[in-house]
């Protein structure tokens, strides 16, 4: 029942999710939406770890725990990133990347 869907569909799904995150990272100009793109990427990685764990190596839990720790760290990273974004907003009164760019070559 569990393995009726091929692992490849899962991996293609996570790949699409990951690369929409990458595309978002490049096209987005708003710091918060960039952060969202990063969360998409990390989520895709989590799917990968869990699917590999379930389909290929169900006799141990390494992938499961790896994704558990990724979730924990992603939360920590997001909290610091949001503190930094609010810090930016206080100074520049905007969080658009193109305006937060005082340093030039």
């Amino acid at each position: 029942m569990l393995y009726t869907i091929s692992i490849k569909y899962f991996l293609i799904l996570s790949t699409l999710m990951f690369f929409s995150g990458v595309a978002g990272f490049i096209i987005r100009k708003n710091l918060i939406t960039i952060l969202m793109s990063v969360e998409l990427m990390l989520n895709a990685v989590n799917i990968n770890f869990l699917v590999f764990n379930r389909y290929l190596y169900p006799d141990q839990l390494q992938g499961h725990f790896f994704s558990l720790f990724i979730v924990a760290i992603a939360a920590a990273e997001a909290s610091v990133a949001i503190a930094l974004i609010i810090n930016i907003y206080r100074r520049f009164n905007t969080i658009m990347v193109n305006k937060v760019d005082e340093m030039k070559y």
Partner: protein
Amino acid sequence: MGLTEILTMSHELALIAALIILLISEIFSDEKSKYKFIPLAFALILGAGVVGLIFGKTGIIFGGMYQNDALRMAMKLILDLATLIVFLQSTEWIKHPHNKNRVLEFYLLVFATLIGMNFMISSGDFLMFYLGLELATIPIAALAAFDRLKNNSAEAGIKLILSSALSTGLLLYGLSMIYGTTGSIYFSEIKELITLNSLSMLGMIFFITGMAFKISLAPFHFWTADVYQGSPIAVTSYLSVVSKGAAIFIFTFVLYNVFGATSAIWTQILVMLSVITMTIGNLFALRQQNLKRFLAYSSIAQAGFIMLGILGQSAIGMGSVIYFLLIYIFSNLGAFGVVAIISAQTGKETIADYRGLYATNPKLSLALMLALFSLAGIPPVAGFFGKLFLFNAAASQGYYWLLFVAVVNATISLYYYLLPVKAMFIEKTDSPIATFKAKPYMALSVAICMVGLVVTGFASVIFEYLVSVSSGL
């Protein structure tokens, strides 16, 4: 698992104890007197180093998640020393009225990153590696945004955390593929199980891309210059020396000891990255006027040279990388130290401001000259030997055309490293920086760097020791 086994990680435990001591001091200190704790931070980092030196022992604990050996212990001590120098250099900045009530936060964050780097260096599996890497990165973003006086600092913080999040994403995506093909996250098991197939190759490429972001190899270096320029100078030197050193160490180790079986692929990637990094770092360094930015690009170029050592693929290769990192720490921190002293005294940071410095501040000028000569690799300064051994390691594997590119780049770099020297010694100006006496702690930090440069340059025993404890493919 008993107490004696836990003591294998005595260095990390000492650092964690230091973190707790700092946390308690933060709670019980009053707002006005926090700067009194500055010597405490010096003592704690020294103490952690001494504990690591005395009680440190080799071993593998936590079922292979943590491993310690002579090379790792040496690397940790090198990082301790570098952190101590950074602490010495940061004293004036941290005493500034705007930072005075946040002194302990600064040290807390630095200690947290140092703990992360130690665990990363000692990691025996990819989970600890990832945790250490994140612990070494997230607090640094907060440190980069530490400066309240400058908008640039806030900008540096957000740029650092977002680019590091992107690189972490790429790296983890690669690691998930490695896990998919080998079924393990332990280094020792992956080493046995990894084979040359399309999925594991793709995973390795993503992994290398992620690491290339972290150690700012071109073309993944775009965040570096802004972050280095915007961050407070102490954080910049910490980032460019300590973080980078730790990341390069573990990168080398993983390539050798985990991806050893697939070296045919990663050597080609590294050759490409090395050529691009050296060239781009040099070309951008040529046109910088701000010294922090200048040192940022020069450190990008230096990372390109370090790749040559990694390509050596032998104990000599690894030894030469660590040896170069040691010299790089002294020369880069020496240069940053002088820049920090002058910046703290006058607020001036561009090369043009340094005109005629030799006439007014001869000692500082000589120190900066020595550091820049070492970065450029001019004999007989230590940096020359560092580069020589790196080139030698690459030559042993027959990368002759890469060596040629490297030598051309080293020659170009001579030119721009000599620009500040020329400004200080030859060019004249009506209003040079006035004569002043550097603050004792900062002067001490530069003095340590200069002594280090001389000692590491002439004591070949250091290099021999590092090679003897290194391991190749």
